[in-house]
């Protein structure tokens, strides 16, 4: 079957079997390797993408379900070759160690903070519940997200 969707702002069309997952299509058909496979069962969040702006485990999303929808991966965050401020914040705060969880964590954080601009650390932690990180212990991830959220809120101004 043919499935059409928007990937990081560009229209894409793939010929696929209906039982394939979005993760497989992204990685194996489209060569979008930024979505990682950590468990293939919806438990680790490494494969997180944004589907119409909301986080989804691409390993559990059958590809026909994305017909006509917007898919965003971490590659969709840069603008004109410049890092998204949330990415900058991850670099500056040392929120990245092995980096395997990072694409998924960034996308979940982006969605959550844009929706909840004044979120506190505990709320950020709860929002990240589906994204496991084995390296950082999360403190610096929360530092990075909180700092970006504060700055973004301040810039938006009263």
């Amino acid at each position: 079957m043919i499935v059409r969707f928007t990937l990081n702002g560009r229209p894409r069309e793939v010929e696929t079997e209906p039982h394939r997952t979005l993760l497989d299509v992204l990685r194996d058909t489209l060569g979008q390797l930024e979505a990682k496979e950590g468990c293939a069962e919806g438990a680790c969040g490494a494969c997180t993408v944004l589907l119409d702006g909301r986080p989804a485990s691409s390993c559990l999303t059958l590809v026909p379900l994305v017909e006509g929808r917007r898919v965003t991966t971490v590659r969709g965050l840069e603008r004109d070759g410049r890092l998204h401020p949330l990415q900058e914040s991850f670099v500056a705060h040392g929120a990245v160690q092995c980096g395997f969880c990072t694409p998924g964590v960034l996308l979940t954080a982006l969605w959550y903070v844009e929706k909840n601009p004044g979120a506190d650390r505990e709320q950020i932690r709860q929002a990240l519940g589906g994204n496991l990180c084995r390296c950082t212990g999360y403190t610096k991830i929360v530092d990075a997200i909180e700092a970006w959220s504060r700055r973004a809120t301040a810039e938006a101004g009263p």
Partner: protein
Amino acid sequence: MSGAPDRPDLIGQRIPRHDARDKVTATIAYAADWAMPGMLHAVVVRSPYPSAQIRRLDAARASAMPGVVAILTAKDVPHNTLATDVPGQTTTVGPLRAHLHVLAEDRVRYQGEPVALVAAETLEQARAAAEAVEVDYEPLPGVFDTATALAPGAPRVHEAGNLLAEWRIARGDVAAALAGAAVVIDGEYETSFVDSGYIEPEAGVAWIDGDGVVTIRLATQVIEHYRDVAEVLGVPQNRVRVIGTYVGGGFGGKEDVTVEVYLGLLAWKTRRPVKMVWTRQESLLSRAKRHPYRLRYRTGASRSGEIVAQQVEIVGDSGAYAYLSALVLLYSTVTAAGPYRVPNVAVHARVAYTNNPPTSAMRGFGAMQVVFGYESQMDRVGAALGLDPVHVREVNALRRGDTLPVGQVIETHVALPVLARRAWDSLGEPTPPRAPHVRVGRGLACNLQPYGRIVWLHDWSSAWVGFEMDGSLVVRCGAPDVGGGQASSLCQIAAGVLGVPLARVSVHISDSALTPLSGTTTASRQLYMSGNATLKAARELREQVLGVAASMLGVAAIELDLVEGEVRARDGRTLALKDVLAGCARASVPRSRLAVYHAPAGEPIGFMKVGGPDMAPHTPQTLAHGPAEPGRGSGKVFPDYTFGAHAAEVEVDTETGVVRILKYVAAHDVGRAINPTSVEGQIQGGVVQGLGYGLLEEVLLDEGVNQTTSFASYLIPAAGDVPDVQPIVCESGEGLGPYGARGIGEPPIGPPAAAIANAIAAATGARLARLPMTGERVLRALGALDGKDG
């Protein structure tokens, strides 16, 4: 003719890692992201039984299935024996030997043991064929706990018997000291099987390169396993190359061989590129775990809180194969009495084979499990004598010049009292309980963890540092980067010495053919070892270059400095680095330097010989005996140790038993923090793994059958399960690494479980002695306090 001493301007700076940008944009190609033209996909056929005889193995039907290119069984493996001890860059392996079969021959000893390999054009075809491989198993009786394994008449996991290794230490007169002690505390503790739980499963791709070299690109902590692949294939070691990727987490789980031998075999047999990626289920099923321990402590103390005697019994579960078990147990034996001066010590440690999954290296490597024992005991001694938790540790803390029970003299500063005080005080004001059924309490736990490898392994590392003609700098070093910032630290050290902006440094790592070998990224050794090798290479290169600049300017080298890409003389003259490098070429002085750093070496203590499969029966080993005289330094085992003290405040819900950590502070003397952000990250990440160990994680086995082969059932901490971890980085400058750094990769994982257990005891009076401390176990302990049958 040396230049002015280099100014380590970059040391101690919070520098973003060189790879952070690539990781937030996901442009790093991890092992599973690699592909080759015409690549096959491979899977492992694994035993469903924990103990069985293979009566018949028939791959005929599977071989005929569509897309199948190769099916390999034991008889197809040129040398079906794999050595699994002491990997990496060591000149001396010593008498410790451990082996296993690459593919099972006629017997399987754990669930998940590899039996056959399948390679096919697609992954689906490979999986379908793997299902179709016919194996006729006859289940055999097995042993699934160490008590049964060590009992007379138990079914034997290996011919030579179930006792794999046994170490003893006997110092002073424990019986007399216990008899004379003011208090004697008895405690039994039990720790669980846990998994490394990295988010990146094991993966790699192999191919025969244009020059005929078997090339394997994979996620590994040890590129030196190319030698093991060569042994199995029966080819010279220089015909196999391992390219290590940036690793998506290791923690010891990618220290032993994972996919490389299977990939090497399949590429060799099929002459085509082959990819293998383990599923999460497969990883949780078959990868080596942390050894569960049963610990029995008897601790005697004087009225003023001095520990006068420590009697320790340790029994560990090695699972079905030896791997690194004998060494893990050695670490436990050496550190069993904790970071304390104890005059009378008896340790008896054994590790046994069972039909459980194999256990091997995992962050903390045996020095970790025993912390739960000795720090629970320390707390109980303090409580029995009415002493403050910090005080009782201050009284006993090791000091420079003290001798460990094994006979090793502590040669560097021990900051333990300061660490304990600062961690404890940093908890701040006590948190009031938020409801009547909630209790709040605080606990403290300290530890010591070796860094660097055992001295009789004669460890070494090498690094190459060189300038390009344009003045940009290249570092080459075999060290794998597992996410701890290993490569980044090397850049920082070289850039600092050579006065090059970090943006002008490139680092090439982890390639057994093209980067100088530097040994394993394990044992908290990489900053220590490869940091020293890089520092040495960079300093020697600096001398070379400044020597040339000195003759160009007609001054002594001591007058010169190398900063921001130029040579500056004291008289104010400068030379562009590019011109000096051209001068090097004219003067036939190389623009690069290769350096080797050798760790302090020593001879094995005791008569070390360990039994196991294909080996002589085991012999018990006494590591040290006799009085623990100060200065009696025959027993050097490790180059040095890192010390730490953690403090936790927890709340216990007495209705559900659920323990929540409110505050957590972790203090370590890291010697020198080369990059404080990376150091803090190691501390925070290690603590959270330790909290998972203490509260959540447990590989559940039912007669050797794994019940926790998914991340839905094997729970590792999520962000909401744990608090912020406040690191306290103390810098004594006393480590053996570059600029006095100590290893910090492993140490922070040790104390958390004990700190929580001590906090639960302070909150409720209940003493948890079994890990993990789940709500159910806490309730049971609270019920026992009330006299109810839990």
